[in-house]
């Protein structure tokens, strides 16, 4: 062993291709240090501005590397179109969440530096996860994204719900990590390789397709990844954690984690585990169908918007899986396309929730009452978000769903497309009441619609509205506009996700 390694003078690293990751992690370090400075203004405004700068710089570096396909650090990571797209999604989600968190109580409670650098590290972890082509880096990426999120969930130190959500996420999430690790260990045991490419060759060469160890490994890997993507029946942490965590964190988690998890599922199952497709496909199909049903059915009758969106995200993850199980390029494209439209809709919705939560202290659906009259921008964005999540035509969500159904039918799984349609039909029953609530006026003026308590005077309410902040409104407006624009002119989206598997097997 020594003799082989003696000739190696350190791994080759393409620094240019590596730069987006460095952008995120370097940004995290800088943000952490700047967070130590004493002037309050720098901590409260400089730190989030720097965070946005770091995300922005990463996006810039991505655009610079747009057409590259390079494998990094001896094929442990790869920069290809899929990585770039997932990173782009994560960075957009990061910028939006930073804007939402600008005035967040939680950021103040655990110090701005920590809050935002944890956000950046989690984003970095997602990129590592989506880019990894090695079991070790996959696991590292997974933990790099999970650990900061555990802390961020619990970051409202004075709120019992936040702490509860953090601990629940930590414990259930760690069970998932341990399961995944055990699966990886068995995968390594079955093949003797940690490289995706190596695993693939080994499985084909040794004919391990029906091997018990290999199949058990796939099973545990599926369970571990299903956790991170919040797929039923491994979903139960999701509603509790989404509800308890600070809203900007929930926004980031719901969008970016899903993107990274789906990214790694596509990469792992389209390469290393591809020979076992006949075995793992039914398992994923079962999980997808259960998720669509459980998510849509569970969301009915929820009072808390965040909880409702948590169940909705379970269902959406189920839809996304449909693009995976067909194992076609069209499927992968549909997954990424759907991730984009899901990001737009969810961020718009969470932006509105953030504002309302600051104004009324509640995320109940009732707290949206009368929003249409008071703030048409927010209400419009929320309406578009709900319609898009439900997949109504002329919104981006329709395009996404149409593409997924197309991929399902194209791959010979038309019935899964019909399951998506049925799920969407059920979902109308919980998306539409939200829309209806917003455009309905307050029952009695002067009464807080969420709590039923009388608000003091007009002045107090205005001061409260001030707390909502223009940043969140900006996020809502931009996302809402994007939903509409891409719903009417979807061509740029198709071009964005076209060739998603370009350079997929490089290295």
């Amino acid at each position, binding site marked *: *062993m020594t003799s082989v390694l003696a000739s190696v003078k350190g791994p080759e690293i393409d620094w240019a291709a590596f730069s987006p990751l460095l952008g995120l992690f370097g940004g995290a370090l800088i943000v952490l240090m700047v967070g130590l400075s004493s002037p309050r203004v720098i901590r409260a405004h400089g730190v989030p501005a720097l965070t946005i700068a770091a995300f922005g710089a990463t996006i810039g570096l991505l655009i610079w590397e747009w057409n590259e396909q390079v494998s990094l650090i001896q094929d442990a990571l790869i920069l290809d179109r899929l990585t770039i797209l997932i990173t782009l999604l994560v960075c957009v989600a990061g910028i939006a969440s930073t804007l939402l968190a600008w005035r967040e109580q939680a950021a103040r409670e655990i110090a701005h530096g920590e809050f935002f650098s944890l956000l950046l590290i989690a984003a970095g972890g997602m990129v590592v996860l989506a880019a990894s082509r090695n079991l*070790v880096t996959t*696991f590292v990426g997974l933990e790099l994204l999970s650990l900061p999120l555990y802390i961020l969930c619990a970051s409202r*130190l004075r709120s019992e719900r936040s*702490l*509860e959500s953090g601990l629940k996420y930590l*414990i259930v999430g760690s*069970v998932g990590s341990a399961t995944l690790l055990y699966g990886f260990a068995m995968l*390594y045991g079955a093949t*003797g390789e940690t490289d995706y490419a190596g695993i693939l060759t080994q499985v084909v060469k040794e004919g391990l397709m029906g091997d018990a160890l290999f199949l058990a490994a796939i099973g545990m890997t599926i369970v571990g990844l299903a956790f991170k993507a919040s797929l039923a029946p491994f979903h139960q942490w999701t509603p509790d954690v989404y509800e308890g965590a600070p809203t900007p964190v929930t926004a980031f988690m719901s969008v970016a984690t899903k993107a990274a998890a789906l990214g790694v599922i596509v990469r792992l199952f389209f390469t290393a585990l591809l020979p076992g497709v006949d075995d793992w496909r039914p398992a994923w199909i079962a999980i997808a169908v259960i998720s669509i049903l459980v998510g849509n059915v569970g969301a009915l009758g929820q009072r808390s918007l965040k909880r409702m969106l948590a169940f909705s995200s379970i269902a959406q993850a189920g839809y996304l899986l449909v693009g995976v199980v067909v194992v076609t390029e069209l499927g992968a494209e549909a997954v990424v396309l759907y991730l984009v439209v899901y990001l737009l809709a969810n961020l718009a919705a969470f932006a509105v929730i953030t504002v309302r939560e600051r104004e009324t202290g509640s995320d109940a659906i009732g707290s949206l009452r009368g929003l249409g009259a008071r703030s048409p921008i927010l209400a419009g964005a929320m309406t578009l978000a709900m319609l898009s999540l439900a997949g109504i035509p002329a919104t981006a969500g329709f395009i996404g769903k149409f593409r997924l159904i197309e991929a399902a039918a194209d791959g010979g799984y038309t019935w899964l497309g019909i399951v998506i349609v049925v799920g969407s039909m059920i979902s109308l029953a919980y998306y539409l009441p939200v829309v209806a609530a917003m455009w309905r006026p307050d029952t009695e003026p002067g009464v807080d619609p969420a709590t039923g308590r009388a608000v003091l005077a007009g002045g107090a309410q205005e001061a409260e509205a001030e707390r909502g902040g223009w940043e969140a409104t900006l996020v809502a407006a931009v996302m809402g506009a994007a939903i509409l624009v891409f719903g009417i002119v979807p061509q740029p989206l198709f071009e964005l996700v076209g060739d998603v598997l370009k350079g997929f097997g490089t290295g």
Partner: protein
Amino acid sequence: MNINWFLIVSALMFALGAIGVLVRRNPLVVLLCLELMLNAGNLALLGFSRMWGDGDGQIFAIVVMVVAACEVAIGLGIVVALYRRRLPIDVDELRELAG
């Protein structure tokens, strides 16, 4: 020594850890049980590493150890925060979020 022994012990550890998570109510003990589950994975990795005679599994195990330590540190941090808020240190009492 046959690889199966490693696997049996590690599977037992994994199961013990899982049972511990299920039955124990003290979050500290639950964290311990999670460690047990992760270390079951480690044992399997090391066993396989020995079987294949390369170092990949060992490197993986070191990474996992660090991850495990981080998990525990975060868990302890949250438990301390709960303690400071005078909340019960019992996972069954954490039922504010449900439905």
